[in-house]
């Protein structure tokens, strides 16, 4: 067996493992945030495994589809899911390398998530329900505004490390120690705001609402049921976990494993879980202390983020 083949098999194995791991943990993250939100409101909240129960229930249900829709409606959730799963292999999680690092870096990651969004928004138009169109329109609009801010924030961090590849970037950050620059705070704040917008959280979207006038993501997937809905929900959860991991990688890669020694990997796992949990707390606090913005106030929020990212670039390099 040649070494190239060995490398390939190793990468494929790592990719499977990482995708499987993130898929397995993503529903938990959603439930944890729900639970913490509930506790802040003096409610009990769902049990920690509720996310899994929901998915299991949906997957067992009879698929119901609109009689208006074509195959695009069926393909949408599958492409959305596949794009999210494929994107997980581009990001270092507990080990300072991404399984499919040689496939591409930040630009491919952003492109992969955009692919999923395109698929879901297109499929949402297929039932003829006005809600699907409304959700697709709003989702694509907000994504279009968020994309330059996200890119600029990512560029600010990537250019500092001299690489657009997440694996190289994280290794550079770890090897050089955490030499932090004030620009990082700005870039972090900028990207964090975009993560809030992209994951459909308050103040941009409300994951708990089904009120016609305010929903965005939920309007888009309103007509889905059963296994189709399970795929969408699951992929959205994976996407959220992925964004959190990205933030952690770029701004606080402390503890990430640089060798395959079991102890280092264990530290890596614990550090990653801890950091993601801290971010989850931050998101919970943001969600609990803010009101949802009107749709046409969202551009202001996004432009603040864009401004922060641009400032980060400017003070870092000028």
């Amino acid at each position, binding site marked *: 067996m040649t070494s190239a083949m060995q490398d390939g098999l190793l990468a494929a194995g790592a990719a499977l493992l990482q995708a499987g791991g993130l898929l397995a943990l993503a529903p938990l993250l959603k439930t944890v945030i729900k639970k913490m939100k509930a506790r802040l409101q003096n409610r009990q909240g769902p049990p920690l495994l509720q996310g899994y129960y929901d998915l299991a229930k949906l997957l067992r249900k009879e698929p119901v589809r609109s009689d208006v829709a074509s195959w695009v409606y069926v393909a949408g959730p599958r492409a959305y899911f596949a794009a999210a799963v494929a994107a997980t292999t581009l990001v270092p999680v507990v080990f300072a390398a991404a399984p499919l690092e*040689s496939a591409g870096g930040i630009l491919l990651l952003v492109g992969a998530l955009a692919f999923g969004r395109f698929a879901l928004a297109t499929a949402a138009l297929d039932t003829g*329900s006005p809600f699907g169109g409304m959700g697709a329109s709003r989702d694509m*609009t907000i994504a279009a505004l968020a994309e330059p801010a996200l890119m600029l924030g990512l560029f600010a961090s990537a250019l500092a490390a001299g690489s657009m590849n997440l694996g190289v970037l994280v290794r550079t950050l770890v090897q050089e120690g955490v030499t932090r620059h004030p620009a990082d705070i700005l870039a972090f704040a900028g990207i964090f705001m975009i993560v809030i917008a992209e994951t459909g959280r308050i103040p941009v979207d409300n994951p708990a609402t089904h009120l016609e006038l305010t929903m965005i993501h939920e309007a888009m997937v309103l007509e889905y049921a059963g296994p189709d809905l399970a795929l969408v929900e699951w992929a959205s959860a994976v996407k959220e976990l992925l964004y959190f991991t990205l933030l952690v990688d770029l701004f606080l890669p402390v503890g990430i494993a640089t060798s395959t020694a079991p102890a280092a990997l264990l530290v890596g796992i614990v550090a990653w879980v801890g950091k993601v949990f801290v971010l989850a707390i931050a998101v919970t606090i943001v969600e609990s202390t803010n009101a949802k913005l009107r749709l046409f106030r969202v551009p202001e929020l996004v432009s603040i983020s864009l401004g922060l990212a641009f400032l980060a670039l400017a003070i870092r390099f000028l």
Partner: protein
Amino acid sequence: MDGLVAVGVPLALAIRLVSVVATLMLVRHARACRWVALGASIAASVVTAAVAVHVIGSTSSIDGTLFRHAASETVLGYSVTPLSAWFLTTLSLIAVPVALYSTGYFAHAIAPPRMAAVGAALNAMVGGLEVVFVADGVIAFLCGWEVMTLATAALVATEHESRASRRAAYLFLVMSHVGTGCLLAGFLILGSVAGSLSFAVILSGHVVSGSMRSGVFALFFIGFGVKAGLIPFHVWLPEAHPAAPSSVSAFMSAVLITAGIYGLFKVCAFGLGPPDVNWALAFMSLGTLSAILGVLYALTQTDIKRLLAYSTIENSGIMALGLGAAMMALAHGRHTLATVAVAASLMHVLNHAIFKSLLFLGAGSVVMATGTRHIEHFGGLMRRMPWTGLWFLIGALAISGLPLLNGFPSEWLTFQALLQGFTSTPGLVRLNFPLTAALLALTSALAAACFVRAFGISFLALPRSPAASEAHESPAVMLVPLGFLATLCVVLGLFPGFVLRALGGVTASLPGLQPPAAMMWGGLGMSSALTSFDHVAPVMFGLAFVGGLIGSAALTGRRAVAVRQAPTWGCGGELTPRSEYTATAFSKPVLMIFGAVYRPTRQVDAVAEVSPYFVHEIRYRAEIEPTFERYLYRPLLRGVVRMAGGMKVLQAGSLHAYLAYVLVLAVILLMWLGGTT
């Protein structure tokens, strides 16, 4: 094979010329006309492709003579350089499927008495364009340029009963000739200084210098910018491209605009010596402006062909900004970076040609099937036209710059150029790069929104008009070219490394660029100058994506449960096409957010007959402000008309006055000549 390559260019042009004559002679036999014109176009394109591929492979130019007149010592030569070959490859790659599609499309869409004119004009247009790409001197270049322009104008005016078509053709002619005038002036200045009209002499980069050089640059920038459809020289494009028959529109949008890009490459970037920083800034800023405004205007169009035309402006802008980044790099002496940027721009020329012709041809099929260009009257076509729908969807994914398809690699390379530009150029001016990158990100995200809308509203859900509910799938001869182009979108999207490899020789042949060793490529992917900076292998991502698809199938497809079909909830009423979200509504949030750009006006009138509380009918009219037409061209036009009015005094229509002018002129000439001898 070598023999064919040596005479390929004159042979291809001869085939086109003969077919033009033959088509015009067969004017009464529409069917024969169609086959002669389109068959000749395919044959000539294949010959051209053979030459172009040979030149790209061997990276050495092929020179020869097109026309020789011994008595006057006129020789018009051609020279297929690697750069020409790249554009010729793009041309023939698109011309073949376009011609094949047209064999089916023209039979339905063109009235028989006009077939001869359309067929002849098509071959004249493509032939003219070929001459433009291979000309080695000013005369041949301008002849080709003019033939191409006039033939295109004829094609735009195909449906000359409609006022809109005539107006579009007229606007196209006027704008094109403003451009040609600028080119003529530029070439004459260069020619008179150098004392030659050969490109090898006047584009050597040492002919003019100083402010003269910048003036010449400006002339060429406007001249080629008009053809490339860069904002603010774009006003003709959204009128002319939709007016032509759809397969011709496809060729115009995909290939004809690259005549402008080719000129910008050959003359502005690499023909006038090392570029100035200000030129690079002009390129980058107008490129970015075209990209962003192009997509914003595309997003609000409800005419599918106008939408695609505006998106052409956007993509032309992306090509120009890539070239601008290259010029900025050259101005700072960063040759590797310039190579990346040029490769990005040239790769986008090819990729855009493929997906834009795919989308235009797909739109042509839809327009033919429904008899309208209005998106709000489509809907539900995925069921009626499944193959057209599938190919259009692939084109829509590609043009949105999404991975796995061919829009992604060229945008990826453009981002590489912009990001490396930021790290490797000095001074404040480099802040342009991340700003441009952010706007490019905005552009591609808006393009995604635009094509979710264009595809979703046209092909999905319920038919929105009786015509759409009775649409029929196009014949196979129109579907095969679409399938071919869609396959190219996927293949070039998965294996961009091969395209970059082919581009290696092209970039190496341009002055000031590094040999291709600076860039990496391979079957698996490509990387920009530094592998550690970034690299991409879409095919690996494709495997991961397929893995995800398999996973989703495993999750949902375990049990053979029958899928239950149920009606969509109609919000308490019956679900009709009228309750669907419209294209106008889809783009409304963007319209409101970018209100400062669009400056929309709308007027809602409630018509009541009996009492104002019982509204009988609501009339709604919405418009976005045509900024450039209103604030740039209208004052300009007014100035020209006023000047012409002033000149009218001279041309009073009195024979006596004219005789007096002749006399005065003769006297002045005699005095002047007498004074000099």
